[in-house]
């Protein structure tokens, strides 16, 4: 093959490759054009779909809002007639009924209370969801808030034979700024749930915390631990979702809307905290939440450590959190404690020695006979005894009066009561001062309720009738104003003993009417009646010069208490026992 042949072949190759390059360029242009067109089509499609999606999304949001609003409105509307039902049932239960009628009224009352609770839950949830919750920043005692709340739920727990031990760390300061009402609401929900889902064992409450942000805030961590049915891991993930209970059968078995946890979590987060949960099916659950509360002062509040000087001290009870908490608390006060289970104790032997000793005995471990024996044995003994009893323990007062060497402390044990009782017990055994506050002797010159005339300002016919019926039942005289303007005029004309002022009224609402009345009368007690138990409403009442507030549905006991608080004790026509009796 000669050179010219090679050159010719290579030229052919070159022209072949050139041709394919040109072809490739054409193809590229063609494809680019296609791609451009496709891209345009795609952009247009995306734009159309996005528009469509936005329309659908807006529709869904609007529908959801409308449903929320409907839920809130309906709840409010349902609450008004329900207030009438509950109020009248309250009155009906105080009238002369046969046993069978009493039972029927009782069931109706319980059902109405439950219905109201559900409706309140829905309303509260709507508020949390809509971000309409406003928080107070008022000084309050965290320790007392927790102890009061736990105490209010003790009846439920001890009714089921559950122990309700509380341990509040000594580091918790006396005064903090925050929303006590909301904290109480969260505690009631979590403790209530724990009691509801626990059949045996205990529900323990623990609170501790520390100063943060240069001592300007206090972070508190509260946990509620139960030995109840527990939650399986799958359900655990969704229990904070609204309307969800861990098991659908729970709704039938335990009742409830499934809103409580969502509301509580929402409130906790609003207060700068977090809520978490751990659980084991069949073993129990632990709900923990943190809150950030403000320091009312610029310095860290240091709690001086308490100390007690007691002779040899023995706790006698059943091993468990209650036992451990007591031991821990006493040790923190410098008391040298021994722990013993009641099963290894012989009462005669226990009280036989001459040396001074203090016994703290858990009443769960002993029966009535043994309690009597303790009283007898301690009468001429150097031993001091503190009996730790459930709130339903009945003979406490009489025992307390009989023997100053034996004191009763009701569970859940408050730290300060334990401290005071032990201090008193060991300081002076002859002091008759009991750990329980005795009511003052009734005065012989009490005015009668009939001496007082109450102005009832209320527009709703059902509530008017109910208010009148209750005031009549309590023995008060009354006059009726149908709106705020009428109430102002009547208060100007006549000196009433007190005014019961509805919040929402036509022509002039309760707040405006109160402002007007305060311009000419600063003395007259004005009590707000509101269906809205939220704290912002309460604040408004107090800020414009109202003296007290009661929430609807009106309960005769609340009305009586509030009027008594404003007017001083009077002999009303129903006995206090009757008022206190559980429904």
């Amino acid at each position, binding site marked *: *093959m000669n050179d010219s*042949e*090679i050159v010719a*072949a*290579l030229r*052919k*190759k070159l022209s*072949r*490759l050139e*041709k*394919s*390059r040109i*072809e*490739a360029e054409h*193809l590229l242009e063609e*494809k680019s054009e296609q791609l451009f067109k496709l891209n345009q089509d795609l952009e247009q499609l995306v734009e159309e779909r996005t528009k469509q999606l936005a329309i659908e999304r807006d529709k869904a949001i609007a529908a959801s809002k409308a449903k929320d609003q409907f839920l809130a409105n309906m709840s409010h509307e349902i609450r008004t007639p329900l207030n009438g039902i509950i109020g009248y049932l309250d009155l009906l239960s105080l009238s002369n009924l046969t046993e069978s009628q009493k039972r029927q009224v009782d069931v109706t009352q319980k059902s109405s209370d439950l219905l109201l609770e559900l409706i309140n839950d829905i309303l509260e949830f709507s508020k949390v969801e809509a971000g309409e919750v406003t928080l107070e920043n008022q000084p309050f005692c965290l320790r007392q808030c927790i102890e009061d709340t736990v105490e209010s739920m003790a009846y439920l727990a001890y009714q089921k034979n559950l122990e309700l031990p509380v341990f509040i760390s000594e580091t918790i300061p006396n005064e903090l700024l925050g929303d006590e009402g909301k904290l109480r609401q969260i505690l009631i929900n979590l403790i209530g749930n724990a009691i509801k889902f626990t059949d045996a064992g205990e529900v323990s409450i623990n609170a501790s915390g520390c100063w943060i942000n240069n001592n300007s805030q206090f972070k508190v961590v509260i946990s509620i631990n139960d030995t109840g049915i527990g939650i399986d891991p799958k359900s655990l993930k969704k229990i904070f979702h609204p309307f969800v209970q861990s098991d659908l059968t729970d709704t039938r078995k335990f009742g409830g809307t499934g809103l409580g946890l969502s509301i509580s979590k929402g409130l906790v987060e609003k207060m700068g905290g977090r809520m978490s949960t751990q659980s084991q099916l069949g073993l129990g659950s632990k709900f923990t939440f943190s809150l950030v509360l403000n320091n009312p002062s610029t310095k860290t509040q240091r709690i001086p450590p308490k100390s007690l000087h007691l002779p040899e001290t023995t706790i006698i009870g059943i091993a468990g959190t209650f036992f451990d908490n007591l031991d821990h608390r006493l040790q923190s006060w410098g008391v040298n404690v021994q722990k013993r289970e009641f099963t290894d104790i012989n009462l005669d032997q226990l009280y036989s020695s001459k040396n001074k000793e203090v016994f703290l005995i858990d009443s769960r471990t002993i029966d009535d006979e043994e309690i009597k024996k303790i009283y007898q044995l301690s009468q001429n003994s150097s031993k001091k005894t503190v009996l730790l009893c459930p709130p339903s323990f009945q003979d406490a007062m009489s025992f307390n009066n009989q023997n100053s060497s034996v004191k009763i402390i009701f569970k859940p044990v408050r730290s300060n009561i334990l401290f005071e009782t032990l201090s008193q017990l060991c300081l002076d055994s002859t002091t008759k001062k009991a750990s329980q506050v005795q009511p003052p002797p009734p005065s012989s010159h009490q005015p009668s309720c009939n001496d007082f005339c109450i102005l009832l300002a209320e527009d709703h016919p059902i509530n008017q009738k109910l208010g009148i019926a209750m005031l009549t039942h309590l023995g008060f005289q009354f006059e009726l104003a149908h709106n705020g303007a009428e109430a102002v005029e009547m208060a100007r004309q006549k000196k009433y003993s007190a005014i019961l002022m509805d919040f929402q009224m036509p022509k002039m609402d309760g707040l405006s009417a109160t402002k007007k009345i305060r311009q000419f009368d600063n003395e007259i007690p004005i009590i707000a009646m509101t269906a809205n138990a939220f704290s912002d409403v309460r604040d408004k009442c107090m800020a414009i010069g109202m003296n007290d507030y009661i929430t609807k549905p009106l309960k005769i006991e609340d009305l009586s208490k509030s009027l008594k608080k404003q007017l001083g004790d009077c002999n009303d026509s129903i006995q206090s026992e009757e008022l206190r009796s559980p429904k």
Partner: protein
Amino acid sequence: MKGIVFNELIQLIESIIGEVQTEHLLEDADLNSGGSYTSVGTYDHKEALSIVQKFSKLTQSNTDQLLISFGRHLGKVFVVKYPDFYKHKNVFFFLQSLDSYIHVSVKKLYPDAELPSFNFEMINDKEMLLTYQSVRPFAPLAQGLILETISYFGQKESLTILNSGKNENGHFALFKITQGCEVQDE
């Protein structure tokens, strides 16, 4: 048939007989395209057959054998150019994905591509039947591709042709791939 196949075929021939001879061969083949191919273009498969036949005549070798060798060459090129298609655990998984994934992707990129179909059937854990079906007589090319793929996965599979020929749908070949034997070269 896509231009990449023609370009790879010409490159392979060039590497064997040199550029000048190759140009003569292409001229002899009297191709409509004049032997100018761009890899993304589409061309008549008969041109590829003409080139192979001319090469077979020139080198006095068997056409099928040449197509098998070309298949192996093409296999090596595909591994480098399209590594994503080869992310499989073994050759069985790769072959199973031929129609369901690889050819679907090729069709997306080149909607005008006319691809052969590969149907597989597992006889048991270790044996697979693979049917090649195409309007074009390129079963030996497919055979070369499969052989190269087996080598790529480094496994000990053997490839047997159970049957091949023409049917109402064109050309077909039935391959059996068996695991557990040394890789056999044709």
